[in-house]
């Protein structure tokens, strides 16, 4: 049993591997934006946290137990909103960046950082690290191209 969802580059964020089974779509806006999926016997919730109408969007995934999954499916309104938020607390969370509805990269978020800084700040921190690393790599590649 893995704590983290498996992602594959090029797949859709709401079905992040070819073998992922969609259990329920909780929310949509032109595309599924939150829901419940299964990989083997493991259940995961997913949520688009930003970029709902942009070509680039950010997603988070967290594992839930079968009981938690059922509770989410049964809940409505404020009860659902509360359960859904709790599903991402105190556990490893996978974040993914998608472009044109296809996963381009993924990275694990640390539960302690989420607890200390909040989910969105944790994502921003990881994004910033990626941007800095990409900029450094671009400098090297630019140098190689110029040689």
């Amino acid at each position, binding site marked *: 049993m893995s704590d983290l969802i498996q992602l594959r580059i090029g797949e859709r964020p709401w079905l992040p591997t070819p073998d992922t089974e969609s259990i329920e*779509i*909780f*929310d*949509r*806006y*032109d*595309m599924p*934006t*939150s829901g419940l999926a299964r990989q083997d016997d493991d259940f995961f919730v997913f949520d*688009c*946290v*930003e970029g*709902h*109408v*942009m*070509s*680039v969007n950010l997603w988070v995934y967290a594992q839930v137990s079968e009981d938690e999954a059922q509770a989410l499916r049964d809940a*409505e309104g404020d009860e*659902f*909103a509360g359960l859904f938020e709790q599903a991402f607390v105190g556990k490893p969370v996978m974040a993914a960046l998608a472009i*044109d*509805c296809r996963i381009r990269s993924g990275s694990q978020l640390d539960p302690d950082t989420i607890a200390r800084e909040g989910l*969105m700040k944790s994502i921003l921190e990881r994004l910033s690290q990626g941007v800095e690393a990409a900029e450094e790599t671009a400098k090297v590649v630019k140098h190689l191209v110029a040689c």
Partner: protein
Amino acid sequence: MDDLGDEDWVSQYGTIHAPIGGNSFKCRPFIHEDPQELSLLAGKLTPDEAAGTVNRRRTSGALPGDGVRHASVGKLRSAGFRVWRSPTKKIAGHVSVMPLDGNRPWTDDDSQRFDACFESKAWKEGKL
């Protein structure tokens, strides 16, 4: 939930910031998606209302450059679209729209007729 009347208004949420498909307001579903429908929101919403409805993490509303456009349900129906309430767990006012003749890829003509139904736009002012 009651169906929408022809006199009801719907809003479409969009953005100028790297929008999906290159247009500030989406005018056709992705070709590979099923069902082939677009999302709208019930009511004549402001950019702040639409942003907070679509993304509950937008507690302060829209970002500068986000916008909405409005259409009457009757105009969409007259233009050949089926329009119906399709609430989700978090968006009670979610509305779906697709061509009257069913779940098929949208044509260029569908997109043009859809775009032509919208009568007003509103943008969130400011700089990002």
